[in-house]
């Protein structure tokens, strides 16, 4: 089969404005969008620029806006997007500055990530072996540990598009992973950060994040759990 890949392109050193470019490519229904992008880059137009690495949805490099939804290019198959001869649109994720073609500046995203203290905090003396944790306590924060920091969620959030100061769902997921870890001792600091103007309260439960997450993390649910945790801590 073949499809038309319509790509939003921008070359910072040549273009004043971004523009659409369409490529007709041969493919199999089971191909990933990443395979087609690779094909174009390798054999048709090598200037096409995007990030990628693992090619199977585990490194978080290649979140893009594909057919109007945030997806990992390596985790969405052609057959789920278009029929033979159909068109697939590919754009950079929104809300972050486009550096070149499909590649955006991720620094603001990681700045928000770092702002929620995304690391284990427990200054007690360590035991000789492991700290014990029950299976239930481990399960409590399992969902958040799956996050690959791909930014698909944050850049699908209508609030984040217009208000880049919002820490965003990805950061909240990271915070959740520690807040609900029975071994961690930094909970109140994290809840305090998320209790501020740029924190959880900016979330309007739009669910785009949940639908965009390639790791099937119930992002909105985790955000709501954090909201409640902040509330119960304060009242």
């Amino acid at each position, binding site marked *: 089969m073949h499809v038309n890949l319509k790509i939003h392109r921008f070359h910072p050193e040549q273009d004043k404005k971004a523009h659409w470019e369409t490529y007709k490519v041969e493919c199999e229904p089971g191909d990933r969008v990443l395979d087609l992008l690779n094909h174009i880059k390798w054999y048709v137009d090598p200037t096409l620029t995007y990030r990628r690495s693992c090619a199977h949805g585990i490194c978080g*490099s290649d979140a893009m806006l594909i057919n109007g939804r945030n997806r990992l290019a390596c985790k969405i198959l052609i057959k789920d997007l278009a029929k033979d001869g159909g068109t697939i649109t590919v754009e950079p994720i929104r809300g972050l500055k486009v550096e070149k073609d499909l590649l955006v500046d991720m620094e603001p995203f990681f700045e928000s990530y770092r702002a929620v203290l995304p690391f284990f905090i427990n200054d007690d003396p360590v035991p000789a072996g492991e700290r014990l944790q029950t299976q239930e306590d481990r399960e409590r924060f399992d969902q958040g540990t799956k996050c690959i920091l791909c930014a698909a969620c944050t850049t699908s959030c209508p609030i984040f598009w217009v208000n880049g100061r919002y820490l965003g769902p990805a950061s909240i997921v990271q915070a959740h992973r520690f807040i609900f870890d029975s071994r961690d001792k930094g909970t109140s600091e994290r809840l305090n950060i998320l209790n501020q103007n740029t924190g959880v309260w900016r979330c309007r439960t739009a669910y785009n994040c949940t639908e965009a997450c390639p790791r099937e993390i119930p992002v909105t649910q985790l955000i709501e759990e954090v909201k409640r945790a902040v509330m119960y801590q304060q009242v």
Partner: protein
Amino acid sequence: MHHRYDVLVVGAGGSGLMSALYASKNKNVSVAVISKLYPTRSHTGAAQGGVGAALGNVSEDHWEWHMFDTVKGGDYLTDQDAAEVFSKDVIEAVYELEHMGLPFSRLPNGKIAQRKFGGHTKEFGKAPVERACYAVDRTGHMILQTLYQQSVKSGVTFFNEYQVLDLIIEEGICRGVVAYDIATGEVHTFHAKAVVLAAGGYGRAFKVTSNAQTLTGDLMSIYYRKGLPLEDLEFYQFHPTGIAKMGILITEGARGEGGILRNDSGERFMERYAPTIKDLAPRDMVSRAIYMEIREGRGLGKDKDYVHLDLTHLPREIIEGRLPDITDFARTYLGVDPVLAPVPIQPTAHYAMGGIPTTIDGECLASSTDIVRGLYAAGEVACVSLHGANRLGTNSLGDLIVFGRRAGVAAAKYAAEVGYEELPARADNFATAEIERLRSGSGTENAARIRKELQETMMDNVSVFRTDETMSTQMEILRELQARYKNVSVTDTGLRYNTELTEALEVGYLLDVSEAMTASALNRRESRGAHAREDYPDRDDDNWLKHTMAYRNMNVPGKVNIGYKDVVLGRFEPKPRVY
């Protein structure tokens, strides 16, 4: 641009982050990490199954047993001093990861959960033992995330999306590196007292691989280009269970949980190849068994070129609960639900046992005796010779944390003791010239096409089974591709995010490391571990119980000089390897 750090770590995967974290615990030195990927994109994140350590949480276990399995799994080419350090230290290292917050799966008593894994046994080979500590089926992901989180916490300096182009080594002393800032196209010189290489493997030399597109053997090649040796490159592991055609890995943990390999008639064929531990035999054996089945016409599919990994007899909760990611892979990429139907699999290029030779403190070797001062290596890029001729599952993550830590500590200690060596004038000349050549637009070749030919021919000629003929052919092909590569140029002449340029550079690295690998394999006239020669099917301890050291011949292009290094024996005498 010019930077100066006491310790520089190249690579931000498990080994790089571990080195950086432990180097930065030494308050007398400044530490920075350079990585061509954002750290959390490193391929350590793809590791699924677990990290092996004899914690004995599920059943009795001892580091000696682990050491034995490692040595035996490595077909006795493993250096036993490394294996001993490793088996002891990895226990402590796993606990340290737990203390850093790594969310291991748990047993009902609250301890770290462990499961069986290929080649890990109790009482020196009697029966499989639960040794792989795991975090669901994303152990590598959790290690990478946890180490990165700790790096954020301790404020490690990162240069992300900087691709290292050259090492500055003069008079046997490493003085820094030259790197290319992908965002701006600038070449930066990093002056350092000690450099730790942790840049991962080169699976992209093969067509079907579990490795990321970015695993292109950069630092191995850069090392090799300087006339320095690469050790044991002929030992390249093909993991038995990659998703057919795509190479995406299905963890051995799937068999650890009870998955069974079946051929076209549904037969559990591993019973014939490894009667005691069957599907949990070491990877080289299982991969060969699968190839044999396919060759003898018992494969499945249109081309009869894959076999089945059958999980359907396991309860849904086990499959979805303990192997959620691979369940997701099968569903996403194959449209196969492993709960209901067997998964088509085929061996996939997976792991380099060989690499930059190092001592057990991570110091890089310039020959079988001398070291390059100030240069360290750890992780897949390195060859401490822990894995010998074949790595056991879960021993790589262990390698990262044990030897990553040792290299970091050693590098920091060294850096704290010495002063800065002088940088040569225009240290970046070589790197700049290489980029200029590619950008000048004079060549006519397309790097991507060369890579494609390389990957296909490597897959045909130097994979699970090898012969003199296939490898000689491959040497010819490589010479030709090398020649063509000289004529490559890029069409994107921009400076910012010129990924066409960085990819073209990577193709150059792949070619060089393939050259060293093929020559090493052609040279070794025996079969051992992952190196299976049809023309020399037996292990030959009399002549070949030694490490290969491949040096580029700096005068004759395409010629590789082979040297040797002794295997460190000890506790365990080489014996035939049966399971």
